[in-house]
């Protein structure tokens, strides 16, 4: 039996279904563990991807790494579980290493492949410039799957939802408040991303980026200087010092393509670059390039996208 822990405090995202798909493809039965107050009908949707059971602990309603670690480790012990799968998100980044230490289970953070016939798992290293094959030396194993790394696969399974009651260690981290940010699609999960850089000259020009993103149902991102000077919020900053994403499509307008920027986006399946400068380094990493002024190209692309969407939806 494989245990998948998912965070449902912000709803059940695509990356959760990916984690269940991944576990199912490992070939064993899959049970899911979560916490919070997600509704039963939503939780049972995990059965569509192969989960037989979802266990939910309704008392932990905030991100408390210590308690979540305690929860997973107690459930794993009760069920004699040797393999635990996470989606590589902010919760797993805190909890999986704690759990790894507690269970003496080797951890592969940010896995991008299933274990091969030798049990080796691929991860991106050197900011996406290389791939390492990692072996886990312990009997117990923890794998944290990078979002957008494997295609979702349906596997209709009857799924029961079970409320867990389990005494947990005391909470040491107190949540004082939460500031909500707007922004519809979480960037790490987005399949389509429209991004722009200093070439857009000022925050007042982001309307055309947002329009295109809206037409496509894409998330928006930006280069570091743009978030540093406050044109765009920090959480949009991608790259070596921001977040790393691997959408199916990354459209970059007015971004030069510095190596530190590429580090965060070179896992994208397809890259489109719009830049006035034919020498911009980004063209070397691009699949499709447009030498042109973003101020003209983005609205035109938006029009073409609209036409396409109207025909195909």
């Amino acid at each position, binding site marked *: 039996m494989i245990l998948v822990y998912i965070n449902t405090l912000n709803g059940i995202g695509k990356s959760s279904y990916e984690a269940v798909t991944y576990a199912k493809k490992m070939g064993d039965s899959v049970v899911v563990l979560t916490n919070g107050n997600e509704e039963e009908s939503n939780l049972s949707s995990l059965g569509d991807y192969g989960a037989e059971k979802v266990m939910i602990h309704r008392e932990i309603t905030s991100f408390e790494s210590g308690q979540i670690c305690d929860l997973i480790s107690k459930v794993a012990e009760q069920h004699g579980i040797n393999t635990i799968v996470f989606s590589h998100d902010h919760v797993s980044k805190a909890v999986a290493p*704690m759990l790894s230490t507690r269970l003496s289970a080797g951890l592969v953070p940010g896995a991008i492949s299933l274990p091969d016939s030798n049990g080796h798992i691929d991860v991106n290293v050197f900011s996406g410039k290389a791939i390492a094959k990692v072996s886990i030396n312990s009997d117990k194993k923890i794998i944290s799957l990078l979002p957008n790394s494997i295609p979702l696969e349906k596997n209709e399974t009857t799924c029961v939802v079970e409320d867990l009651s389990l005494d947990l260690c005391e909470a040491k981290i107190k949540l004082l408040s939460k500031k909500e940010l707007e922004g519809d699609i979480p960037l790490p999960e987005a399949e389509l991303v429209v991004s722009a850089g200093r070439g857009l000259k000022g925050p007042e020009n982001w309307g055309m980026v947002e329009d295109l993103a809206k037409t496509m149902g894409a998330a928006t991102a930006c280069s570091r200087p743009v978030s540093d000077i406050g044109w765009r919020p920090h959480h949009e900053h991608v790259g070596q*010092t921001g977040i790393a994403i691997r959408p199916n499509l990354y459209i970059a307008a007015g971004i030069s393509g510095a190596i530190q920027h590429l580090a965060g986006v070179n896992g994208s399946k397809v890259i489109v670059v719009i830049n006035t400068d034919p020498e911009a380094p980004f063209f070397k990493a691009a699949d499709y390039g447009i030498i042109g002024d973003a101020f003209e190209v983005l609205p035109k692309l938006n029009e073409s996208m609209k036409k396409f969407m109207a025909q195909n939806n």
Partner: protein
Amino acid sequence: MKILVCISKSPDTTSKISFSDQNTKFDESGVQYIVNPYDEWYALVRALEIKESVGGSVTIITVGTQADDPIIRKALAIGADNAVRVDAQPSDAFYTAKQLSEYAKENAYDLILLGKETINYNGSQVGGMMAQLLDMPFISVASKLEVNGDSLTLESEVPGGIEVYEVLTPCVVSCAKGMAEQRIPNMRGIMAARTKPLSVVSPVDCQNLTSVVSYELPNEKSECKMIDPDNMDQLVDLLHGEAKVI
């Protein structure tokens, strides 16, 4: 406040990444190392700011070999009081966390700061492992940290917002952007760093939990296809028909 900052090295981002010994070893020839940016810009600088406002000390620690001493001196030049090097090749995150924790345990720190991840292995593992080994609370990817006596207020970016937490020291915090502004060492700092204490300690026995078997370079990108800026219909067609991403 007695603060320990864990520092790791990482290859300068412009380094060419290649491998030797049948792709089992990172080829270090010609690679310039820097202090991992998260450790330097955020963890270390915030530690110094805290010391400047409430007093205390800032010790930096790294698990590494003598070849890493220049990195340590650089961090000392930015302002840490003293440095410790656990004399070992860090072979996996657990091994590293174990070495760091053993030292931390003996010296009773109020606060242990790390970077959110190393940019070579991008694992975000060491902090959580240390917290568990030391039985301390762990706040990851914090973008703000304020000290009020023996309690800390922290902010962390989560999907959909920013969460504000309160936690008592001692604890372990991994630091991300927003925590502090980068500091450039000045001449005085660089001079002073030469004589600041750097103690070298021996590693404790510890087994790796994971190992890297081999490395690969990603497939070369095929040639970039250029599209006429006046023909965005063609781009959309290609994205749909050829690339199949929309």
